[in-house]
């Protein structure tokens, strides 16, 4: 019998508000411990929460973006448990009446089809602080800077069947929240993290198996690895006659394995009840419709437009539409170069390679969209070859100026002077007698391939600057003349 995995995800997206969800303290990342925790965040006796309306706006925008039911009356509840970095002894969250109800997103599968994944709900809640174990031997330090940072917890239906589908879903949510500008999406700083619920069952079976929840995974790669590992672990265990314990697990990226954190029996009874310090949030159609009118173009719509407007392939359109900044970069470049395909190739190729290698955000790229567009124009007008263009790009990345400045300074202009090219062609033919003989004695239909050798030699001789079209034309003309003589 064949196994099937069932995966549901809980994503915590930190909302990009300036101040915390229930206090005026800053949410900026990386400050000295406890310098961004005010009386409310410290849960001093007598302090009270005041809801930050900006978090509401962001949550509703997300709901609209995934075509979800909006909670016109949503209520904050208290989730009670003791932990040193949870200053009030409860987390303010939304259990019974979340701000966002049922919605969905479409993910693209590797075989080119799309699959609809249900979103059960998304609710607002506050983040906890951090416990610091390493800095203080035999003690625990508490940093409450993060306490009270607004989170949107996005809960999916158990609709995914593989680690790849799960990652595609996470990437789709990631691209939606960053496109909306409601989350910076920074996974390494914990602004976007994921809990993975995984179970397995025989294919065709209705009933779900016992599931495990692996908590707080903060990279796409780790999500894929953790889920794959967990599926394998569960199948192995079941095939050996074991049973799966419902439990919470932790993913250890160093060992690439999950391990048990606590079982269901040890789980807390959170004693949820409506928070009496906060009034229910009531919104109306006017509020929702006003927000709907501010919705930016979202990845799915943009992808369709890219295919339509620029005749991009499905794949190129999907990649280039996923993130607002990337899309903007591509479109700016494509419009300058007046060649979308060329722009797509360069953005997804050379540019992406450099960004990844240097761990640089596209908004901080030393080669701006305008600069890349300028470079592509020089390819299009035959000033430089594609090969030379890569050299120019390197120089631009290193801060040596615009494409034109680099081409000028380095003398990289393509050679189009027929006399000069002819001289180089003649020289190559003269210097490579055996290859010329082979060409001449070959069947005419094999000769086309053999011309590449001579091309390479001439381009080498010209340091890449000779116009390849002209070189090829002359080579063919002269070699065929020899063959036919």
């Amino acid at each position, binding site marked *: 019998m064949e196994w099937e995995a069932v995966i549901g995800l809980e994503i915590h997206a930190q909302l990009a508000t300036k101040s915390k969800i229930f206090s005026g303290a800053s949410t900026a990342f990386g400050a000295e411990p406890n310098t961004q925790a005010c009386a409310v965040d410290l849960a001093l006796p007598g302090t009270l929460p005041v809801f930050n309306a900006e978090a509401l706006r962001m949550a509703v925008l997300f709901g609209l973006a995934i075509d979800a039911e909006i909670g016109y009356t949503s209520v904050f509840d208290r989730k009670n448990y003791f932990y040193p970095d949870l200053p009030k002894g409860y987390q303010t969250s939304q259990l019974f009446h979340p701000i966002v109800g049922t919605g969905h997103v479409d993910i693209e599968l590797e075989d080119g089809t799309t699959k609809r994944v249900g979103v059960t709900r998304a609710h607002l809640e506050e983040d906890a602080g951090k416990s610091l174990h390493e800095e203080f031997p035999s003690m625990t330090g508490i940093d409450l800077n993060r306490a009270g940072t607004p989170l949107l917890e996005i809960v999916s239906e158990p609709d995914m069947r593989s680690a790849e589908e799960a990652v595609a879903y996470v990437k789709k949510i990631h691209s939606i929240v960053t496109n909306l500008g409601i989350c910076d999406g920074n996974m390494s700083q914990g602004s976007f993290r994921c809990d993975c619920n995984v179970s397995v069952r025989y294919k065709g079976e209705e009933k779900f198996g016992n599931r495990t929840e692996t908590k707080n995974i903060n990279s796409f790669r780790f999500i894929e690895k953790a889920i794959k590992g967990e599926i394998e672990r569960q199948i192995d265990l079941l095939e050996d006659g074991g049973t799966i314990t419902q439990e919470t697990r932790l993913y250890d990226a160093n060992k690439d394995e999950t391990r048990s954190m606590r079982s269901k029996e040890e789980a807390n009874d959170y004693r949820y009840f409506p928070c*009496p310090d906060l009034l229910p949030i009531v919104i109306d159609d006017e509020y929702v419709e006003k927000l709907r009118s501010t919705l930016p173009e979202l990845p799915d719509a943009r992808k369709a437009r890219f295919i339509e407007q620029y005749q991009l392939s499905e794949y190129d359109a999907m990649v280039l539409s996923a993130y607002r900044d990337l899309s903007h970069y591509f479109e700016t470049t494509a419009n300058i170069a007046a060649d979308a395909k060329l722009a797509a190739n360069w953005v997804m190729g050379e540019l992406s390679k450099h960004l990844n290698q240097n761990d640089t955000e596209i908004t901080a790229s030393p080669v701006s969209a305008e600069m890349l567009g300028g470079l592509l124009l020089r390819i299009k007008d035959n000033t430089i070859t594609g090969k030379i263009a890569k050299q120019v790009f390197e120089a631009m990345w290193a801060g040596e100026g615009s494409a034109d400045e680099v081409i000028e300074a380095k003398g990289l202009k393509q050679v189009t002077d027929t006399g000069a090219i002819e001289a180089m062609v003649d020289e190559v033919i003269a210097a490579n007698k055996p290859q010329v003989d082979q060409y001449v004695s070959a069947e005419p239909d094999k000769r086309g391939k053999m011309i590449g050798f001579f091309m390479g030699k001439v381009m080498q001789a010209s340091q890449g600057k000779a116009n390849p079209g002209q070189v090829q034309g002359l080579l063919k003309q002269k070699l065929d003349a020899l063959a036919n003589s």
Partner: protein
Amino acid sequence: MLDKTLAELAQGLAAGEFSSTELTQSYLDRIKAEDGALNSFITVTEEQALSQAQAADQRRAAGDAGPFTGLPIAHKDIFCTEGVRTSCGSRMLDNFISPYNATVIENFNRAGAVSLGKTNMDEFAMGSSNESSFYGPARNPWNTECVPGGSSGGSAAAIAGGLVPGATGTDTGGSIRQPAALCGITGLKPTYGRVSRYGMIAYASSLDQGGPMARTAEDTAIMLNVMAGFDPKDSTSIDKAVPDYTLTLNDSLKGLKIGLPKEYFSDEIDPQITAQVQAAIKEFEALGATVKEVSLPNSHLAIPAYYIIAPAEASSNLSRFDGVRYGYRCNDPVDLEDMYKRSRGEGFGEEVKRRIMVGTYALSEGFYDAYYKKALQIRRLIQQDFVNVLTEVDIIMGPTTPHPAFKLGEKTSDPVAMYMEDIFTISLNLAGMPGMSIPCGFANGLPVGLQLIGNYFAEQRLLNAAHQFQQATEWHRQTPAR
């Protein structure tokens, strides 16, 4: 000057008969001399009081004095006061010096009030006798063998004992009105949301409400003028204009419709209390009011509903006292769990622990619907009872408590008997409406309180009725033998 009301003291200050510094010093001297017997203060802030008094005198000299400038009061030790220990009557916060002011404290500071100190209270406002205080019980000035009531027992005892002319209190199930009744003073619990809860240490957030306590209705009106108002720091405070509560005190009571709930006049009430309350109602009739019997049919459910909702909220509100950031921490914890258990086990007293346990149980999985949810349904029924009756009448009247002050220790071994003392006050917190207790006589030499209940934001009407009663009677002028 010490036995004057706030209104009279304000006149004296304005007329230059005495300075705030002189007045403050006299009260401080009296507290020093007499509070040993009453234990009504947890902390006396002599230095701050004198410097506030000097500032008030300067403000007056500069022609910048307001109606409350220079008047000495005290605050229940539940209001966070910057730089001053704010204990909430608990060992848990015995070492807690608040780094910030409650909004109520800010309001009084801005008005130029002088704070003599922080008054005794039941631990975390949980109690009806002041006996659960970590600092020992405050005593009733009418008979120091008796309790002053609670939880704002320190404020009531200090006022009745002449140690301060007015004080703040908080009322979650009767904690202003019941001690006011037992000590023979005037106390007002405003409409829920009228006075900011910011900086008022939470017991049961949906029921807690701060309010004034003083000798007269006029004085509580003067205090409420300072205390009331919308506070953006408290999401449950209500953005509604605050009237000058003193302006309507002298309105006629002609045509005032009074309702007497039959449930508040049962056989279980001390007959002397019933007699005094009925005599007071006659007085209101003489002042032009009409009286009719009404019914609050769900009254008997108030105590059980309250003792689910209040402990449930308390069990969560008091989770922050964990020994991690401030407050009591046990010695040499071996690990985190040990620190939690012993810090809370040693830091909280019996009654607080009892309510945390009850509340935790009521919110537990599998019990929530049977207890908490049901209690909320009852709460709505009780609220509806009041709404219905208050469409027929302007003010509901009855006894504040079923008995006068009881002896120290008399009810400590029987929590339910203690809870029953709040039978007439508790339902009002569930409904959220304002209520007052004013002195209306004596039973066995101990004060009796008359409760006045009005519709949402009807504080003006309550204060007007109480003031007119006090203009016609002398009960509020009675003071215990010194």
